[in-house]
């Protein structure tokens, strides 16, 4: 699941203990090489991190990825000649604390921007405060909240596609390769409903149909009674089960169908950070998954992916280099890396010098469109929509073969486009 890299920053806890905060600048990464800028004071990025609470498992990987991204940016000379410092605050994966953390960034730590929030309910709790405090706030959440228009002009999601785009982009591949008659099995709450609604519309647009929608109560831990509800005509099963019962779900589904199952398609969210060799998952052999970023290094692995894995300390199977069972949240955590690089590019385009230039930063990012596949964007090329503050990109569809995920299809960026639901650029600052 998760690992945390002990960096210079974390060592400060010990140094603070021994001698107080005065020692801290001495251990900040690479402060000495930035004197040529107008100000050599660091650019402070407030990192709202799920260090504790239900998101902690993801949080540790988000921290590891962000630390690596910032180290790389500083190694390359920082932003506008200034070093970058991550100011990390734990929000406990809690919406109320999230809003408090945003406030701390703006008022106490004097951060230039806020960054990194993952869980949607925390984004909803924090983003309004960021808008009030006029703090640019970059989320790494894959929720549809930004593009839906529910938030405000200070909130952006430039590093990861949203769930609506992801789900929609799956439909052409599913309809053309797996089948047109789909039964959806999903947990009966907002997360599952997103998939149900977005995918139903998308598959119909491809000439397919959802023949059954099987909603599973979130507290369910045994699923055998639901499988008989799958219609005989079903060609594809689309599943997005999450939670501790997911291995049981896969096992029971495998036992129900035996060797003659329909095609099976799922979202890796179900098994993010889970070892594919876990018991029960042998039934997944031959089935397909959406992956935000391919966990296993592919035969045609790019140099960008190699560099990215090496920087974070991830092996070719998506696990920590120090423990092969410590599987990362590989499908999602690239969002931190890429978002930080977008921030860098935006600050450089805006000539960003300090909080007075926050509006210029937002406008500079709103002006962005293409993001090339590169070390800055190792997951793939992207297109940013300045009106909806949401990025669009490639999605990966992988098949489980001999216990590893091999990419079978990469969607076009356009497959994830949908009509704009908001134009934030019309909102005043």
């Amino acid at each position, binding site marked *: 699941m998760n*690992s945390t890299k002990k960096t210079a920053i974390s060592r400060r806890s010990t140094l603070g203990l021994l001698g107080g905060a005065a020692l801290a600048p001495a251990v900040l990464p690479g402060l000495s090489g930035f004197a040529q800028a107008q100000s050599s004071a660091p650019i402070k990025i407030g990192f709202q991190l799920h260090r504790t*609470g239900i998101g902690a*498992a993801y949080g540790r990987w988000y921290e590891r990825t962000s630390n690596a991204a910032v180290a790389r940016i500083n190694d390359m000379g920082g932003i506008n000649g200034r070093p970058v410092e991550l100011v990390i605050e734990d929000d406990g994966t809690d*919406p109320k604390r999230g809003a408090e953390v945003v406030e701390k960034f703006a008022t106490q730590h004097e951060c230039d921007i806020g960054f990194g929030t993952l869980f949607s309910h925390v984004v909803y709790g924090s983003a309004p405060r960021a808008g009030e405090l006029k703090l640019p706030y970059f989320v790494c959440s894959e929720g549809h909240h930004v593009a839906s228009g529910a938030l405000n002009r200070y909130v952006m999601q430039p590093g990861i596609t949203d769930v609506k785009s992801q789900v929609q982009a799956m439909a052409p591949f599913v309809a053309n390769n797996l089948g047109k008659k789909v039964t959806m099995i999903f947990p009966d709450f*907002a997360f599952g409903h997103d998939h149900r609604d977005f995918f139903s519309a998308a598959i119909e647009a491809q000439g397919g149909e959802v023949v059954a929608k099987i909603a599973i109560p979130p507290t369910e831990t045994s699923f055998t009674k639901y499988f008989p509800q799958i219609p005989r005509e079903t060609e594809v099963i689309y599943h997005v089960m999450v939670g*501790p019962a997911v291995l049981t779900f896969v096992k029971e589904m495998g036992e129900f169908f035996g060797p003659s199952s329909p095609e099976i398609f799922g979202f890796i969210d179900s098994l993010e950070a889970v070892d594919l060799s876990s018991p029960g998952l042998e039934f997944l052999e031959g089935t397909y998954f959406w992956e935000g970023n391919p966990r296993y290094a592919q035969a045609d692995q790019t140099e960008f992916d190699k560099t990215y894995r090496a920087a974070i300390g991830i092996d070719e199977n998506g696990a920590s280099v120090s423990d092969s069972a*410590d599987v990362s949240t590989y499908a999602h955590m690239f969002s931190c890396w890429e978002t930080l690089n977008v921030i860098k590019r935006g600050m450089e385009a805006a000539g960003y010098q300090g909080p007075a230039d926050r509006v210029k930063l937002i406008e500079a990012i709103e002006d962005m469109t293409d993001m090339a596949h590169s070390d800055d964007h190792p997951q793939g090329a992207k297109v940013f929509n300045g009106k909806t503050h949401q990025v669009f990109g490639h999605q990966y569809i992988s098949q489980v073969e001999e216990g590893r995920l091999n990419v079978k299809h990469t969607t076009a960026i356009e497959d994830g486009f949908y009509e704009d639901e908001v134009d934030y650029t019309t909102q005043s600052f």
Partner: protein
Amino acid sequence: MDVRHRLALVALLLIVPVTAWAHVSEGALVLLMPTGFYTVAGVSAVLVSVVVAAFLTPTGAARLFASRKIYLPRIGGLRFIMPAAGLMVFIAAFLAGVLGEQHPLENLMPLYLWTLLWLILPAVQMIFGDVWSRMNPWAFVALFLKESTDQTGKPCWFALVFFLVIYLFAMVDVAPDAPARLAVFSGLYWLFHLGMMLWKGPGWLARGEGFTVLFALLARLSPMAGGRIGLPGHKLHQDLHPRGQCGNNPMLSVAVFAIAMLAAGSYDGINETFWWLSQIGVNPLAFPGRSQVVAPMLMGFVMAQLTLLIGFSAICFLGWRLASRPGHFQDFFTVMSLALLPIAAGYHVAHYLTAFLVNGQYLKIAVTEMFHFSHAADHAEVYITTGFFNRPSYVRDIYVVQSCAIVIGHMLAILLSHSFALGITNNRITALKSQAPLIVFMIGYTFLGLWLLASPRGV
């Protein structure tokens, strides 16, 4: 956030779809295990202890809990060094909390309080005996104080209140491990009890300070308690059961404290289960955050305390009646309550084992760094791992250790309570009658403990 914002947030949460991030952990692997089989095996083991207890005579019980003196080498200076070290560690943690990096997992303040004291020290006390009394952050000052008034025999109601408040803080507070905040609370707590100690004498801690009473009770379960070695609980047995008499009767407050420990530990497990979360209307796959469930969690804690206190009192009363009212009911109730201590200890080990396996790594790194004077390690990559939760064999081992803790706790509890009953009644049949309701209760509690281990959790 003002009321308007709160309402807007609630409305937003209700109408806008959210993304689920619940992930699979060791809980998923436990769900695949034949936990029913383990539960039956565990309950059977407890039943065996019932059979053994049923055949116990007063002499047999005394033999079972007999102990032998251990001769430990005396090391000069320890009397001063240990309390001084205890105080220094506390001060270091406090300073780290106030001045250090505000990392809830790496900062020494939460590591000291929640990992060292809350997770590890109970186990240390259960194994080695009362280390806390020598290493607590007040012990050094206590060396220089004289007991102004006799504190022995005074009830520990104040300590009970502090224990409950600390437990509630750990479970219900929105940010219990935020370092600076925790340091301020800990500092105030330390100062308060320092003041009380200066006023009332060093004996105050044993009746007024929550950790001290908690740890002292757990230390009584140590096989090495009181400088003697024997079956875990022999000290408790000896204290409550000299020569078959109930002469050294514990106070009611200590008994209620023991019940509160078990209730708190039980609710600590229950509040994470799918079952409880659905009772309070929370989707276990999308836990909304601690700030959103303060009231129901608080209510659950209070309910657990009251339910166990009232329920266990009723069970004791029934047993006392069945045995034709031997002695005073209060005496019967107090000794039987103390027999619950091994169960509370078992729950503690089972509940916190997984947290210990992760947080212990952070503690190890913090300690290593503190004593690491070479800067060569500054750039070394030290990783925390939770990969073992992905390995079925490890998960099974963890589950087995947890189950054993629960089962052994109940077996000891049954043997202890039975031997107490023999002490009170001095008659095997009457003792057995008095124990009938307690045996049912303890078997039920074994089920509860093993069910908790096998249940899906959502927090």
